[in-house]
Each structure stands twice: as C-alpha cells, then as structure tokens.
C-alpha cells in the first residue's frame, strides 16, 4: 500500500481549509480542515446528520442549489479554490464528478446519459465514431459494456438499480474528472449489487481520487485506504483505514466504530 500513498506535496486531490457552512442560521460545518490525497479511496464516516453529505456537496458546489447556503473558508481541488467567487461552477463540476445515493440517470437513453456532460461543453460536433468510442470506453471502465452494448438506445431508467448506479459513474468519466464524490452510493442496492459496485470503485482507484460517504463500517474497512471520522460538523479523526479500525486515536471514534452511538 505504501506506493499508493503519493507524496503529500505532489498529490492533494482536495484541500479543505477552515471551511464553515450555514444552512440559513443553522451552522452545519465548523472549521473543517482536511487533506484528501490523490489517487486513493477515502471514506467519510460519522453518525447521521454530522455533515458528511454537506461537506461532500460543497466540493462540487452543488450545495449552492439551495439559495440560503453561506460558506466561509476555502476548498481547493487540484490547487484551485473552488469556493472562490471567480471560480466557474461549471468547470469545477467537470473536474469533480458526483454519484448520488439513489441512482439518478436522466430520463434519456443509456448512450445519451454517457454523452450528456461532453455534449454540454463541446460546441464542436463529435463524429459518430468518436461518440461511440467515448460511450464504449466509459461503459467498459465501469464493467457495464457487455451487459448493455445491445441496448444503448433504450431508456436508462429501465436498467436495474445496480446497472443504473454504474451508469451514473460511467457518465462522469468522459470529461476526465480528477475527483469522484460518492454519497452512500450503495445504500439503495442489495448486498450482491453493493459488492459489485464496491468492486468497481476499487477498480477505479488510482485513476481517480475517490471520496466516499458510507454508513457501512464493513464497507469503509474493506474498500478504503484512508478514513475520515466526522462528528457534529467537525472532523474528529483522519487516519489510515486499518489504523482507525484497529487503534482509533480518539475515544469518540472508537465509540462510533464499535456502534456505541448511532
């Protein structure tokens, strides 16, 4: 595992600095400082309501869809402050893909789902064969190609949940994002599908920096290199996953991991 830990200076995927966030008057994040290394899987754990989704959704600024959100502090993705007023939300979202809790393919064909992000930005007309190549490459990368190659023009909402979730990952890939954010990507899936998607995430490791929220301790332990424990809007502990599960540094972490509070 040592070689998968890049030098910190060389490879920070996300750097959060004194980040605070308010929903109206309610403060959800308090002075969060966090360095997410590039190229590995980092799990974000903590009890319900501790701010995991909020932090994740701040990284691609999708949290701003709510008009009443205010922030202070900075979040850097690959050295660029995404929270800076002059940063383009659109550019940020091309670099930082997001997978949601419930698979949410758009109500268009499988193929159009994969091509959606690319066609938003590239004014130039893509030739049919270029498009085919992008679709095939993206679907192969999520191990879905063989299952859907004969029905690319069918509506994506007809797929099984597992296939939908894989498609939702595949459609992020054409814009070559650096970071993938996943908010409980397996919580709507059954155990077999969960295992399949976990395997896929593990496969993507290295090419992308992955930040994944999970409530499933076994999943965090199995499928992450580093682990972040949050509590009440603050980061409590950030350590190697093995380390955190075997010998957590903080009492709250130990209590949570052992299920002493929800």
């Amino acid at each position, binding site marked *: 595992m040592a070689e998968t830990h890049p030098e910190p200076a060389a490879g920070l995927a996300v750097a959060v600095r004194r980040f605070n966030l308010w929903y109206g008057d309610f403060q959800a994040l308090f002075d969060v400082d966090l360095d997410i290394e590039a190229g590995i899987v980092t799990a974000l754990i903590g009890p319900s309501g501790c701010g995991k989704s909020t932090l994740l959704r701040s990284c*691609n600024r*999708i949290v701003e*869809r709510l*008009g009443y959100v205010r922030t202070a502090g900075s979040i850097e993705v690959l050295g660029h402050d995404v929270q800076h007023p002059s940063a383009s939300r*659109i*550019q940020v*979202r*091309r670099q930082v*893909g*997001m997978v*949601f809790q*419930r698979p*949410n*393919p*758009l*109500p*268009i064909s499988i193929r159009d789902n994969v091509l*959606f*992000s690319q066609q*938003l*930005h590239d004014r130039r007309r893509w030739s049919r064969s270029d498009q085919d190549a992008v679709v095939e490459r993206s679907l192969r990368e999520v191990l879905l190609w063989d299952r859907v190659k004969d029905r690319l023009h069918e509506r994506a909402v007809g797929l099984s949940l597992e296939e939908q979730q894989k498609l*939702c990952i595949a*459609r*992020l890939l054409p*814009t070559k994002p650096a970071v993938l954010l996943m908010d409980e990507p397996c919580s709507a899936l059954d155990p077999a599908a969960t295992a399949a998607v976990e395997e896929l995430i593990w496969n993507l490791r290295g090419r992308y920096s992955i930040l994944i929220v999970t409530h499933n301790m076994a999943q965090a332990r199995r499928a992450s290199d580093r682990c972040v424990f949050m509590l009440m809007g603050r980061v409590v502990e950030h350590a190697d996953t093995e380390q955190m599960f075997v010998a957590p540094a903080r009492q709250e972490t130990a209590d949570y991991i052992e299920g002493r509070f929800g």
Partner: protein
Amino acid sequence: MVPAPGSHQGLDRLDGAWWRDWAARVLVSLGGISAILFIVAIIVFIASQGLEFAWNRLSWAELLTGARWEPTANPPRYGAWPLLAGTAWITAVAMLVAVPLSFAAAIYIGEFATGSRREWLKVTIETLAAIPSVVWGVIGLQVLNPLIQQWFDTPVGLNVLNAGVILGLMAAPIMTTLAEDALKAVPDTYREAAEALGATRWQVIWRVVLPHARPGLSASVLLGIGRAFGETIAVLMASGHRLLPPTSVFDSAATITATIAAELGEAAVDSDHYQVLFVLGLVLFAITFSINLLADGLVRGRRRRA
C-alpha cells in the same frame, strides 16, 4: 390458546365505518356521474335544436366550405368558411402571443423565482385569469384599436391582430399555470443530476426539464387553443366582426362563437337560421372536445410511460 378455524368473529359484520364508506362512495360517484349527465344533456339539447334542419335541408359541404354567410338573404346562404377561417386565424395569432408569454412566465416562476416573489407572481397570474372577458373586449376596443391604427397605419384597428392579441393575453394565465404544473412535475433529482454534470441553469432547462415536460406543455397549449376557440364576447368586440375570410392579420374577421352570439337573438326560433346556428355550436363542440381529448391523452400517455 389457538382459536379453532372458522371461529373468528366479526369478519362479515357491516359496521358504521363500512356504511360511511359506502355512503361516501355513492355520493362521490353521483357527483362524477352527474357531470357526465350534464354534458350528455347539453349535447342532446344542442343537437335537438339543430338536427331537423341538419338532417333534411343542410348541405354540409356548403356549411364547411361555402364562402358566403348570408343567413338573411333570399335565398339564404349558409357557408361558414369565413367563420371557420376567422376562428383559425385569430386562434393562431392568439397562440403566437400566448405560447412564448406563458412558457417564459412558467419557466421564470418554476425554475428561477423563489420565495415570496414566486408566490406573489402566482397570485397575480391567477388574478389575471379572473378578469371578465368583457373587460378584455373593452381593452381591445379602446386601447389596442387606436394603437393598431397608429402603429400600422390601418383604417380600422378592430381585426385579426387585435382579437388575437386579446385572446392570447386571455389564454396566457391559465396556460402559464398549466405549464408551470408540467415543469413542477419534473423530478428535482433530474435537475440536480444535470447540474452536477456541469450543466448551466439554462442547459438544465433546455435539455432536461423542457423535454421531460413536453407532454404537459403540449397539453397546456391545447387547452389554451380550446380557450381561444370558445371565447366569444371579447372577440366579438375586438375582431371587427366582418363576415369574410381574412387574408391578413389586418383584416377584420368573424368567429363561430361571435356569430352565434350576435345572430341567435335575431333569428326566429326553429327557423333555418336559428337551427344552423346550433349546428355551428355542435361543430364548435366537436372541435373543442377533440382538442381536450388530445390534451388529456398526452398527459395520460406520459404518466403511463413514466
């Protein structure tokens, strides 16, 4: 102790709740059925007033294509083509006005406005929908009429353009409300997904929301058309009521409804003239009924697919 099979009590007893449920069901069904009964009764009434003439003496070919509507001439001519054409022209202009207006308003209200501004706008639009049509007629007569004369240098400002604009403004509020409902029915997860993929607000609307809402939007247009078809008094006041097929938007024109309203009072009961006006009513009814059916089918079709 386990009860023996068959010893459960009360499974077949009809208690108070059952009777209340039964009564509610009967009342509600009666309400629903009475609506259908009314419609049938209206059709039967209209048909009974016009059917004898339609059956025995009316030439349908002349009614639908004849260019001369001269019911009081000798011999009378019942060619309703000028009225059909006038209705079509005015409705078309009305939709050219109402569709952009109502879609823009619906997109603004549904996708951009928030909080109190949004509520305030919705109330305003519902108020607009409640303006009586005679008021719109007066606006056509007193406001649009001189404006059109001035801007386009025409001798009369009561014409297809005037009536179309008035009808468009009249139909826009209800179309806005329906279009906004169609936009609201698009799940927010679609917008979120598209935004997370880097779509701008406008791209989300154009590529995700509008395509998904298309059946509902089409239905709103069809219902707007139905509204424009059926409107009478405002159009009678604003159109100039000229019984010739219009050839431009600056021609005065007459519609089916306006003609019925204008002539029914003068026609002797059960005369041919009286009866042919009811036949026109039936034609109008058939058109609006088909439009509503189509709109309904569009909305239903979408629901089945979703």
